[in-house]
């Protein structure tokens, strides 16, 4: 069902209440998601983005109830990823020849995925498409989060169609930021940033500065996932500015895996030490084999420091910690302190493996770490608490 945003813009996307995993199995989406597509009608009619492939037929059927497809003069593809371009093959079958406005890189990504030679119109930053009384202005945004990404701005209505920027995997019939649960909304917005945009923070800062410098009035930000920012839309822009500046809160996060609970008991004893040294700091513990990895990465994103633990198994680490180290390497968090810990029975390589992984991921490893033989006894637990106190002191 379409939802009217104002007199000329309708949301014609798909709310996906069922979605729990995205990007294959890579990303958890506890609150579902939506694929936002927008129909703008002026003297000319333009469709901005589509939906994910599995919903292509529903999308096109629903769209036909809104408009005769042949009245669509232009299509804008802000980003070629399949969750936004997935209905293009079906749509272009219905209205072949309709021009698709996109970046040069989106021609590559769309051709690379669909192997179709549609009527592409390559646009660059600052170019305008006249819709009659209003214009769409295109703003390239490479690596936010693919090379092909761009934003489109609708004059007169003052709407920024920001594609994945400012989006959240958050299914809601409320549609607008002022009508939803703020805690859920901001958690999902932060999770999206932490898990997808962190590596591109430098570009986030630059692009926001570039857009603000244009001094365009902003009444709404319409992202391609989740709710629309209409009440004080700049609030999410300001939040992004903070998140892009090596964001951290006063939090230390433990990420560990454990076989026979020795490493877990170490984690808890180290946490006790931290709390003895610093009552203010928030301390959270996650077993990486049990907790959701994207939630863990969101907690890492908001932390000033992490402690990563694994017992030694086959001269290495447990697989969930191996996976975690790979994740943080790709996300390139900045300005975070770290240390390793773990129990072992004979060879004891896990601490060095984790320290190396943390260093390679750009964390500031502040100590050699702590490794203990077999199950911790009272003396070992006291060493853990001391280690925690030292770590807390180095994070002040």
């Amino acid at each position, binding site marked *: 069902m379409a939802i009217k945003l104002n007199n000329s813009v309708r949301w014609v996307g798909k709310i996906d209440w069922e979605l729990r995993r995205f990007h294959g199995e890579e990303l958890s989406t506890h609150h579902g998601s939506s694929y936002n597509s927008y129909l703008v009608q002026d003297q000319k009619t333009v469709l901005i983005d589509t939906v994910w492939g599995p919903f292509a037929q529903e999308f096109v059927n629903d769209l036909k109830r809104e408009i005769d497809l042949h009245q669509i003069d232009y299509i804008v593809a802000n980003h070629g990823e399949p969750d936004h371009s997935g209905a293009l093959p079906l749509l272009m079958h219905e209205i072949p020849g309709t021009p698709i406005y996109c970046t*040069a*890189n989106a021609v590559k990504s769309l051709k690379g995925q669909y192997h179709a030679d549609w009527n592409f119109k390559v646009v660059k930053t600052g170019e305008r498409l006249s819709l009659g009384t209003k214009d769409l202005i295109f703003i390239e945004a*490479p*690596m936010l989060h693919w*090379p092909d990404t761009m934003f489109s701005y609708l004059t007169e209505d003052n709407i920024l169609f920001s594609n994945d920027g400012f989006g959240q995997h958050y299914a809601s019939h409320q549609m607008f930021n002022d009508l939803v649960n703020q805690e859920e909304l901001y958690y999902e917005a932060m999770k999206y940033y932490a898990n997808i945009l962190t*590596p591109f923070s*430098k*570009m986030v800062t630059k692009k926001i500065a570039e857009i603000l410098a244009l001094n365009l009035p902003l009444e709404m930000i319409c992202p391609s996932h989740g709710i629309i920012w209409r009440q004080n839309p700049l609030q999410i822009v300001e939040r992004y500015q903070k998140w892009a500046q090596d964001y951290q809160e006063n939090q230390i996060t433990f990420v560990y895996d454990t076989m026979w609970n020795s490493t877990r008991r170490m984690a808890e004893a180290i946490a006790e030490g931290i709390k003895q040294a610093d009552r203010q700091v928030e301390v959270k513990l996650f077993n990486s084999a049990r907790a959701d990895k994207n939630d863990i990465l969101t907690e890492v994103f908001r932390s000033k420091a992490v402690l990563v633990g694994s017992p030694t198994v086959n001269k290495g680490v447990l697989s969930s910690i191996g996976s975690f180290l790979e994740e943080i390497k790709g996300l390139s968090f900045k300005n975070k302190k770290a240390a390793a810990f773990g129990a072992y029975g004979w060879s004891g390589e896990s601490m060095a493996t984790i320290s190396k992984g943390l260093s390679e991921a750009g964390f500031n490893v502040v100590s050699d770490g702590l490794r203990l033989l077999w199950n911790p006894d009272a003396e070992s637990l006291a060493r853990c608490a001391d280690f925690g106190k030292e770590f807390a002191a180095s994070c002040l």
Partner: protein
Amino acid sequence: MKKWICTACDHIYDPAAGDADGGIAPGTAFEDLPDDWVCPVCGVGKDMFEEYND
């Protein structure tokens, strides 16, 4: 000095400008960039660049 273009994201490395964020002084030829230099836009390595003619 020649400009080079990133084949992943189309960023153009202009030796006259260098890459301030990456610690590269203006006037540094592409060939003289350190081996671990990466595209300031998308992060791919030097091997993903090719010569660019305006």
